[in-house]
């Protein structure tokens, strides 16, 4: 039995859960996909070949994993819509090169280059993260980090956070329903004292649950470590995945220089 074999509809992965990418050891994906992001973000503004190679690598991974553009966009739009509007200001404030008047504003060519580059870097970075989470369950990401010697406390917190996020969300939903049932829906932020009291109640409940969970862990012999029944094992295909990404990206990144 392999603990990586989660029911796909329950764990947040997208695409074909049986694909070669989904079945990779989480460590291979934790090394390979963020590396694409790091290479793109660290490249100079005009390193277009690097961006093209990064995009091609991610497109290849998405194709093999059968993660559709719609799924990818659904997951990427949140972070991208936070970053890109901020970058959209740059063409108006970064002077340099040709410029054009747009009513009371002036658009500068240098700023447009920065906007294009930031947009591309952000898209590559977010896409790498999206592909990682679309092809790897959160528990497997944590197991991968643990196997890569991430601090034990961090692993413990991440594991319990994943488990209890759903429990706390359920409590929030129940409290919201109870509030609505007594016509307690606040109509503006200024009248949200009741929300503060709900937050306090939620904190106290979560704290009490934390104590009970700790007792339950102690009752089954917890001594500071989370033992794993199914250790990860790197196969040739996992190492090949990292090697292929490295062999495509590193030469291009080195040739692009430090900008």
């Amino acid at each position, binding site marked *: 039995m392999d603990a990586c074999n989660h029911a796909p509809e329950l764990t947040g992965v997208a695409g074909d859960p049986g694909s070669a990418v989904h079945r990779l050891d989480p460590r291979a994906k934790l090394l390979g996909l963020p590396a694409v992001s790091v290479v793109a973000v660290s490249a100079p503004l005009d390193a277009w070949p690097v961006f093209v190679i990064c995009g091609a690598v991610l497109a290849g991974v998405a194709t093999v994993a059968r993660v559709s553009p719609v799924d990818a966009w659904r997951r990427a739009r949140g972070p991208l819509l936070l970053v890109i509007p901020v970058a959209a200001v740059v063409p108006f404030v970064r002077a340099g090169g040709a410029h054009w008047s747009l009513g009371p504003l002036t658009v500068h060519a240098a700023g447009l280059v920065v906007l294009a580059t930031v947009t591309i870097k952000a898209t590559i970075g977010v896409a790498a993260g999206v592909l990682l989470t679309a092809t790897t369950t959160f528990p497997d990401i944590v197991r991968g980090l643990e196997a890569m010697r991430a601090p034990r406390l961090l692993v413990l917190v991440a594991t319990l956070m994943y488990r209890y996020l759903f429990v706390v969300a359920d409590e929030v939903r129940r409290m919201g329903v109870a509030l609505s049932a007594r016509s307690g829906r606040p109509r503006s932020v200024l009248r949200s004292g009741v929300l503060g009291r709900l937050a306090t109640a939620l904190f106290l409940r979560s704290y009490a649950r934390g104590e009970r969970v700790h007792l339950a862990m102690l009752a089954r012999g*917890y001594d500071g470590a989370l033992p794993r029944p199914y250790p990860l094992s790197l196969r040739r295909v996992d190492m090949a995945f990292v090697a292929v990404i490295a062999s495509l990206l590193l030469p291009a990144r080195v040739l692009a220089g430090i900008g």
Partner: protein
Amino acid sequence: MSWAIDLRGTSYRYPDGAGALDGVDLRVGPGERVALLGPNGAGKTTLLLQLNGLLRGTGSATVAGLPVRDGVLRELRGRVGLVFQDPDDQLFMPTVAEDVAFGPLNLGLDRATVAARVAQALAAVRMSHAAARPPHVLSMGERRRVAIATVLSMRPQLLVLDEPSSSLDPRSRMELIDILSAIDATMLVATHDLPLAKELCERAVILDRGRIVADGPCAELLADAALLAAHDLMLPSGFDLSRITPREHPPAGSRASMPA
């Protein structure tokens, strides 16, 4: 005689000074199934937590052949399987299989043995199909069964259950009784569910305000309406106890049994 539970004069006060147990004497023999009854706040959960040293009161306590004291707690907790009232407290790992494996791995067993125990424990509670699932997607009844599997995989000599039938629908409750009655282990069951107590346990103990106020055959205690009323216990309205047939103990070595 070697008792599965031997508490003598056990008293406990919470740090805020509230007394929870007041001189409890309780002896449970190997293989017995005992219902621990009592109103809310009687001290039932506090008593259960004494059994594997999670809370430590005064008096002497010997459980599953070990004195409850520092130095033996790891071994003691391997012998005493405690199932908490809320399965969401009990199930803290990302998947069912990892949770069921947690206890045996902490006992230092090798991975092959742990895998076999996980499979056996999940089969005993009829949850083999859910091994790779995260607990939050299971129904309350399923979570309760998995919570029991998490301690069965440690093959405890003593199974301690805190309100095992709370929040269960009638069908899940019946499945739970089926599963518990097939387990070959000494059992202490804290519950408000008097019909469950009658069906599963041959003996009952009533705890009120931290003291044991009655101890005897379950059928006799539950038939004493005045005793139940005096301690805020009540059968469902119109319930006929004589219609409940107590479950037989399973033969030793049967499929769902967990011999040490």
